């Protein structure tokens, strides 16, 4: 009966407690540490150093600038691509549909590494140009960061724009034209204002992702000070000591993202319009020269997105000696080394990902059920807290967990539990979202029908609702497992000796400039990721990429 605490209220409180203990408390610890002096006294020393030592401020400005530039370039690539695929029938359209996949199957660290094999110090193009006596472009720093991040993040804009266009009622455009504006002006005056807010929201997501990005920033940033990289380096250098700078930098990042979110709430969300009906128009076929130009553009973007896959495949079977890649000569040595020495790392990755996925999906199933079907004041707060991990970069979440569970009642730092927790908390928003997918369509009357037929509430949830949630849960499990296998930024902060995962191994190999081996491990990660996706799409008919 409504109004009774047991069992839904109790379960909601338990979920909320989990979030408070493993997210809010650690983040609070970090923010408090930023206000501590060397003796644990209240002090603004961290912020004084941040403001007076130039490189910290420079890092903040660089990160904001990089975020802004990549947001613009990603929008310039993603939005037109979405418009083309939504509205026109162009050659090669069928491959564009696969693009969202690339984000999943090519982890950021592998994308960065693949591009280094092209433009890095020992890259193919760099070598080729140097051999010809020509100056090679400087890939490390701005150029490389902007190129690689644009290619990684434009997919977010592409998906946001596509969703907005699909939800846009085509009749509004027809109405505009019937009232006398030209097709172009109608788009400008009717379509654009309606789809701009969701695209802008996508842009803000990209901005926060760029500012929080670790893998690409640290591999391609080199001498360029960036906030996320500096936070990580402070963490490494302050290990065991006073965590002032890491906390200060983390607090600055959190405040920056909070500001962006505030802007989104105040400016963007207010301009979101409700479409009464979404009737997307028919796609138009274009032929001739314009089709060729557009198809070339689409093909170029697609090829650039998929290139890392090919590069890693080639890199892994290319003969290499130390940092030198012998392009054109092939050898199985790198792959054999993975086979001989990579066992522990692969097993670590698989066990951590499997456990994190198990608990993450369990929590996701319960939380999404409570959020959608058993709304209360507690679930309102839970809903809000579940968004929080989206805005916290992996590095900062890792630092927060290490600091929060370093000492005191529960010591988790150094145990596998902290790895699993980090993965779980990081992916909870996605887990809950995917688990909810099927829930919205289930009317409350279904549960009531079961209860009226004599099945008690909890049993009803398990017998009636859970089977209907199954496809969403399967998708949640696969996506969580796959993204956890690829996770680097939190792993690299929380892991201890013996807990190395595949992305950590790749990161170390890139750091040592051992591209052949890094490629071999990269290929391993991609294979591990592709397998469940292939199985899910082939045998479960899961639609993983509809959002």
């Amino acid at each position, binding site marked *: 009966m409504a109004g009774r605490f047991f069992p839904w209220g109790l379960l909601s409180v338990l979920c909320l407690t989990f979030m408070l203990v493993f997210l809010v408390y650690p983040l609070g610890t970090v923010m408090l540490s930023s206000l501590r002096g060397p003796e644990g006294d209240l002090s603004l020393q961290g912020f004084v150093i941040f403001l007076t030592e130039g490189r910290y401020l420079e890092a903040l400005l660089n990160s904001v600038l990089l975020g802004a530039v990549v947001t613009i370039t990603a929008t310039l690539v993603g939005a037109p691509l979405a418009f083309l695929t939504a509205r026109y029938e162009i050659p090669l359209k069928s491959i564009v549909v696969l693009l969202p996949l690339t984000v999943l199957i090519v982890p950021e660290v592998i994308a960065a590494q693949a591009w280094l094999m092209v433009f890095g110090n020992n890259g193919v193009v760099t070598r080729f140009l140097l051999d010809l006596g020509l100056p090679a472009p400087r890939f490390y720093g701005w150029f490389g960061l902007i190129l690689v991040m644009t290619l990684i993040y434009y997919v977010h804009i592409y998906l946001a724009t596509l969703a907005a266009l699909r939800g846009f009622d085509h009749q509004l455009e027809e109405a505009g034209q019937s009232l006398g504006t030209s097709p172009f002006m109608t788009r400008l005056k009717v379509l654009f204002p309606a789809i701009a807010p969701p695209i802008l929201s996508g842009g803000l997501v990209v901005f926060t992702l760029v500012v929080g990005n670790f893998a690409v920033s640290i591999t391609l940033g080199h001498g360029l000070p960036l906030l996320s990289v500096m936070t990580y380096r402070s963490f490494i250098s302050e290990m065991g000591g006073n965590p002032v700078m890491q906390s200060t930098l983390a607090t600055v990042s959190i405040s920056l993202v909070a500001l962006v979110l505030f802007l989104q709430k105040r400016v963007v969300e207010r301009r979101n319009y409700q479409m009464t009906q979404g009737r997307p128009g028919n796609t138009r076929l274009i032929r001739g020269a314009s089709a060729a130009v557009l198809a070339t553009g689409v093909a170029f973007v697609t090829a650039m997105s998929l290139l890392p896959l090919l590069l890693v495949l080639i890199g892994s079977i290319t003969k290499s000696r130390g940092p030198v890649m012998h392009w054109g000569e092939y050898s199985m040595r790198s792959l054999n080394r993975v086979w001989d020495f990579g066992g522990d790392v692969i097993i670590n990755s698989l066990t951590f990902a499997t456990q994190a996925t198990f608990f993450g999906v369990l929590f996701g199933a319960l939380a999404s059920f409570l959020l959608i079907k058993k709304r209360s004041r507690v679930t309102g707060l839970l809903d809000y807290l579940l968004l929080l991990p989206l805005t916290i970069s992996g590095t900062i979440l890792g630092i927060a967990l290490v600091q929060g569970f370093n000492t005191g009642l529960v010591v988790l730092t150094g145990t596998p539990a902290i790895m699993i927790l980090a993965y779980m908390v990081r992916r909870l928003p996605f887990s809950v979202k995917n688990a909810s997918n099927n829930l919205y369509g289930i009317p409350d*009357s279904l549960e009531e029908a079961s209860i009226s*037929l004599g099945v*008690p*509430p909890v049993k*009803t949830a398990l017998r009636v609702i859970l089977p*209907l949630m199954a496809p969403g849960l399967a998708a949640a499990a696969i996506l969580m497992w796959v993204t956890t296998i690829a996770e680097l930024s939190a792993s690299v902060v929380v892991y201890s000796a013996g807990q190395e995962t595949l992305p950590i191994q790749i990161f170390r190999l890139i750091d040592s400039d051992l591209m052949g081996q890094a490629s071999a491990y990269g290929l391993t990660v991609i294979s591990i990721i592709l397998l469940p996706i292939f199985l899910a799409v082939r045998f479960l008919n899961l639609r993983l990429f509809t959002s």
Partner: protein
Amino acid sequence: MTSIRVDALSKSYGAIDVLKSIAIDVGDGAFFTLLGPSGCGKTTLLRVLAGFVEPSGGAVYFGAEDVTQKPTHKRNVGMVFQDYALFPDKTVFENVAYGLRARRVSAADLSARVTEHLEKVNIAHLAERYPAALSGGQRQRVALARALVIEPQVLLMDEPLSNLDAKLRIQMREVIRDLQQRANITTVFVTHDQEEALALSDWVAVMRGGRVEQLGSPYEIYSNPKTDYIAEFVGAANLLPAKHIEGQPGGVVVCDVLGQTIRGQCSVELLPQSLKLVARPEETAIHEANQNIEHCGSVNCLPGQVTAYQYLGHKSAYTVVLADGCHITVTVPGMERGDAIPEGTKVCLDLGPNPRFVSAE
């Protein structure tokens, strides 16, 4: 099978009172309908009976047992939902068997009872289908079978016909009434469709703003409404302002209606300050008036002028403007426009010997 009694029942959400001291009695085996517009509290009352909503005050009895605190799954109620609420991942057979499985009925018995009930609603041939492959009417039949197979104490139906098209609705009405009669099960039916309520029920409670405004047999509700609200909600009614001249309730009451003296019945207990005359469109006769005579000679007569004529097939409707700019609608058997009284013609409306006065707000 059991009677239902609801005593001083109230429900409020914060400051909003959704149900205000409801008292109803549903006899054993009766078909009882809660009729009212959306937001009148009828669905909330049904959900209190089912146990989905905990009342703020008052009590619900099934027979002699106070079930107010009893959770739904222990109440043994059969419920039919507006959207049918069929389990989409279960076949028709499994949907109907669901409640029996919860009661741990033996396999042989279960199969026999499910088949028996599927036959009762004529869908035995659909047993292995999934709900998605059924038409609206078929889904409705599954929902009925599923609710009845558990042999519930009471059957509760929440606007079960509102998702069906007009023809099917009338067909399903007969199915529901027939099943209810055969099972002789106490039934509470919620609807906003007055025709449905009149056609199906033994008793109708017309609800408004969380209260039961009038309770009676369908005939009583239609022929003897107590308030202008009921008169207008149940069937079509023209309501005209009336001023009391003489007479007591229960007998003949004389009122002034738009300057004419009208004699009629009034069943309202206390004669309120303001009364209204109910003129049903189909009970009012229309005659062309003699140009010279204002009054057509009948006892209860109102003069007017035709302003519009609409042909509706089985009937035609005149709109007539009366004194003070009041409009009323009068229906007559359908006829060719050329045979109808032309617009602008002065007419006389005969209200019959016994029009009714109701209380108005």
